[in-house]
């Protein structure tokens, strides 16, 4: 009841002599406290000043203690990027949502702005942040409510999350914004080169040019785990690819070789060294998660690599890898007899349905679409189908200077479940769709009058 009498404080404050003394005492105490705080700040300032001088005079490597500033030249980034002409292209990356029944595509621009195209909305959504510079890769989180897009850049990983209602009756939006942003960073984990979400969308793995390890992030729990795919190797990783069954992760090294990390299920995390003598330019998994398809830097040969089948007989053996040449892409002849010069491939993209393979070359203005047949017990068969060129609309414009930047296979839409696309981003700011009406290998073989062997 005493607390309810608000008038009492007022009365006491107005007429109490003793309180005036109190005020005086208090002000003295406050002054002393203020002086102490001031002295403390001054002392702190002087100590930091002294440390700086100590560092200069005694040449103590205190720089080692500070966060290292790593600067990577854009040329180096372009060298390891899977987009051709990454340094100059207007659109330097493309990514599709893995589960959305509608077409949801993210494009990465020259100015490191992410442009999100949703076929249901009229205008695209754009994400940009001051620190989002030198962006190289993107990955949509599977099974997320709304969309969540991870963007790897120089500062770390930006995670953009849409703020979608989860209840029709409620209109609660966090901070009344449509998108939220979270920056995932770790010491030295700068200039992120590759990102991959796991099957459930609970963890994200990233590689960077700043460190020689990869990091597994759990953005919900705000946890991270450093993984070293190849101990004793001081080199960074530039390419991460999960197998389609999410059991293993291929980590392409910046110098020579690649590592394979078993990460799925309840089994322990194990690592193997594969491709010890090859400097990888680009790589991908076949749909059956058995073959690694890759191309060497400076080479025109497409190789396949497969673990020995005997490996599965023994418990946790050291596997041996069988390397096979699939094809030489120097000169290509399609199944219909059209012949063109190929060259060094820049990037390969595998069809999630396991039918096609698409290749962008370093010096050619077209995309090669081919069938990849994996007959049981024998080597992979590569059958070039067609050259996809830029569709020129203006009569006076030649297509010689226009080249493909990046591409991806988009999943079928809900209203057209039988049609898929190969989406190609060209250097002329255009995005082209190539319709693929085949959903099984059998259909593809029938259409192109090919046999399985």
């Amino acid at each position, binding site marked *: 009841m005493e607390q309810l009498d608000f008038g009492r404080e007022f009365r006491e404050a107005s007429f109490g002599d003793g309180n005036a003394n109190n005020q005086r005492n208090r002000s003295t105490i406050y002054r002393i406290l203020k002086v102490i705080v001031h002295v403390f700040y001054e002392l702190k300032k002087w100590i930091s000043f002294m440390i700086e001088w*100590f560092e200069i005079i005694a040449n103590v490597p205190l720089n080692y203690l500070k966060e290292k500033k790593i600067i990577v030249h854009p040329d180096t980034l372009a060298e390891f990027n899977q987009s051709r002409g990454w340094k100059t292209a207007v659109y330097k990356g493309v990514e599709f949502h893995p589960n959305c029944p509608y077409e949801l595509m993210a494009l990465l621009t020259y100015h490191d702005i992410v442009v999100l195209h949703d076929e249901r909305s009229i205008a695209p959504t754009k994400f940009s942040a001051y620190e989002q510079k030198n962006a190289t890769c993107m990955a949509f989180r599977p099974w997320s409510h709304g969309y969540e897009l991870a963007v790897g850049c120089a500062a770390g990983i930006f995670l953009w999350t849409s703020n979608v209602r989860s209840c029709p009756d409620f209109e609660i939006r966090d901070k009344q914004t449509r998108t939220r942003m979270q920056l995932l960073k770790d010491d030295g984990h700068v200039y992120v080169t590759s990102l991959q979400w796991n*099957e459930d969308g*609970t*963890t994200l793995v990233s590689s960077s040019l700043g460190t020689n390890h990869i990091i*597994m992030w759990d953005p919900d729990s705000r*946890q991270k785990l450093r993984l*070293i795919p190849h101990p004793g190797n001081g080199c960074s990783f530039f390419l991460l690819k999960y197998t389609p069954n999410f059991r293993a992760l291929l980590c392409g090294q910046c110098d020579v070789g690649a590592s394979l990390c078993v990460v*799925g*299920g*309840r089994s322990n995390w194990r690592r193997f060294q594969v491709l010890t003598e090859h400097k990888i330019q680009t790589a991908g998994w076949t749909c059956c998660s058995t073959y690694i398809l890759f191309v060497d830097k400076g080479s025109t040969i497409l190789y396949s690599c497969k673990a020995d089948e005997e490996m599965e007989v023994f418990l946790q053996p050291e596997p041996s890898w069988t390397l096979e040449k699939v094809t030489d892409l120097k000169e290509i002849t399609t199944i219909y007899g059209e012949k063109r010069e190929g060259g060094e491939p820049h990037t390969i993209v595998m069809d999630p349905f396991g039918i096609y393979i698409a290749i962008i070359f370093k010096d050619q203005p077209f995309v090669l679409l081919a069938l990849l047949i994996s007959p049981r017990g024998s080597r992979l068969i590569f059958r070039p189908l067609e050259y996809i060129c830029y569709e020129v609309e203006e009569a006076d414009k030649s297509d010689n200077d226009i080249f493909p930047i990046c591409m991806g296979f988009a999943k079928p839409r809900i209203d057209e479940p039988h049609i898929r696309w190969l989406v190609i981003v060209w250097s002329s700011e255009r995005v082209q769709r190539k319709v693929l009406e085949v959903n099984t290998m059998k259909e593809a073989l029938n259409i192109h009058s090919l046999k399985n062997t």
Partner: protein
Amino acid sequence: MNLQAIYDTWIPKYLQVQPAKIRITILYRFVFASVLCFVLDYQLLALFLSLTLFDVRRPVSSLNEAFGWTFFSVYTSVVMLVIRGGVAGYGWLLCNVHYSDPVLCRNRRDRFAEEWPLLLRMFFAILFIATMTSLLYVSFAASEGESWHYLLSCGLFCAVSYFVNNFERHLTRFPLPMLHIDFHAALLNTWWQILKRSGREALYQTVLFSPIYWYSVGWCLDGTVTVTQTGLHLQGWLLSTLILAKLHMVRKLYGLVMQRPLSLINDSPKLHETHDTCLFNIILGHVLRCVYTMQMRPIPRSLQVNSLLLPLTMVLSVGRIHGFRMLASREFYSAMSGKLGRELFALNDVKNIHSNWTELRDLLVTDAEEFVVRLQKCIGKCHANKEIAGKVSRSRMRSLTKPSPRRKPAKEPSCECPAKPQETDYLKYLYLLGQSLRKRIREFGRRVKGHLAGRRHWQCYMLEVDVLAELHHELCCGEPLVWTLQGLVGVFMRSVADDRYGVVQPDLRLVLETLHKVERQLNLASGLIHKNRCSCAGTCRSHELLMAAVQRCQCRMLVTFGPHLDFIVGRGELEKELEERMALIY
């Protein structure tokens, strides 16, 4: 000595109520972590001795001396024993924090009363370990004098700075394992990382400590000696590095061992709750299993039961042991997620799965439903509390009219009069003395309080009722659902390809309904949290986690099974609601 009494007093209650197998698993892990810490003690001592005392010109005699001073010295053995006790105590405190359930704190005073004793205990444990370690190391490095004093203070400073930098007000549990890494590799990796990190931290601390020591203590001894001795500073840095490494490593080691993957088995828990489950039988069973395997004979059922294999249903149904429940649910999720996670729960294996699935499903669904009911109650209470709080605040507003002078209520004769001793004058005198003393103490207390600045504000701050405390508590307790629900959904995702005999798919409706209920309650909770954002402290981490997990589960289930909803749930209210929900996904 009564063993039962010791057990009742020293073993925490949360451990006593658990099934024998779980109790043994936790105790075994604790002992294993403690043994690893003891080994670490010797490793660090060897490092210190080799860096400070090893003489390259006479290596053999140096080694001899080092062995003589460590393994064959009574002093070292006794001090190491004391340090081990301290380390085990510190580990025990860490484990208690990890395993104990979240506590409901309705205001800041409760929180203060809950957290600070624990923090103080932790602080004293760290200080004890650092003091004893410094004493031991310093006794090898310096004789009594200023350098001895300097090194000892350096060690203590190190412990204090470790505590300040690494312990927040809210003590955190050991992090959940994101991936099963080989224990030996993880240990080696951690060892080296922590040593490097401690070296860096210790350098800062030594640089900071030297001027502090020189200004504060050095002048009364002989400060100039300390400042100019470079070797002493190096020794101080080494000592700080090792103490920091030990403190970091002990916490990490306990975390690593306690969060090691559980050996799960898909079996009925009743078979594993036998009375003869004890550590001896388990070790014996392990040996016998080895013998049977070597003789290539089938292992009898009794031996299979007498192992550290834990039935899935048993670990998921444990109560009052939050840390373990979190680990169990995470393990369940890892076992169920992924297309190839068939080691524990093979849907094709109808013979083994059928009976266990029903038990598992009932357990998980009941857990989720109980959580929904608890959350429902909490939300109801929160609304009621808010209404009362609103009424109180309205009544506390000053009236616009002049208040009438208050009359003191006439004193009513109290029914509970204190029994005054009337027998003798002596007792009467004592009673009056006690009364007057009490009165004076109260008056003194009131005066002290009156002189404290911002007393009323402080009181209001401490006693301010957190309207959402109960809700936060329930959400915190329900955190294992983050992983169990995702694991459950993982089973159904696998069932699309694997469930040839329809073992789990008949339960689709039940799971969809449960998920929908959980999400609805979490939505209501989020509404409440948003409304009280200004008055309550921050957002709820558990709520965010649960919301993200449930939304992901809903998304997976509805995207996969959405086109067949009319067949799965039938025409009705639920189908309509789920269809509405589906429209909101993208």
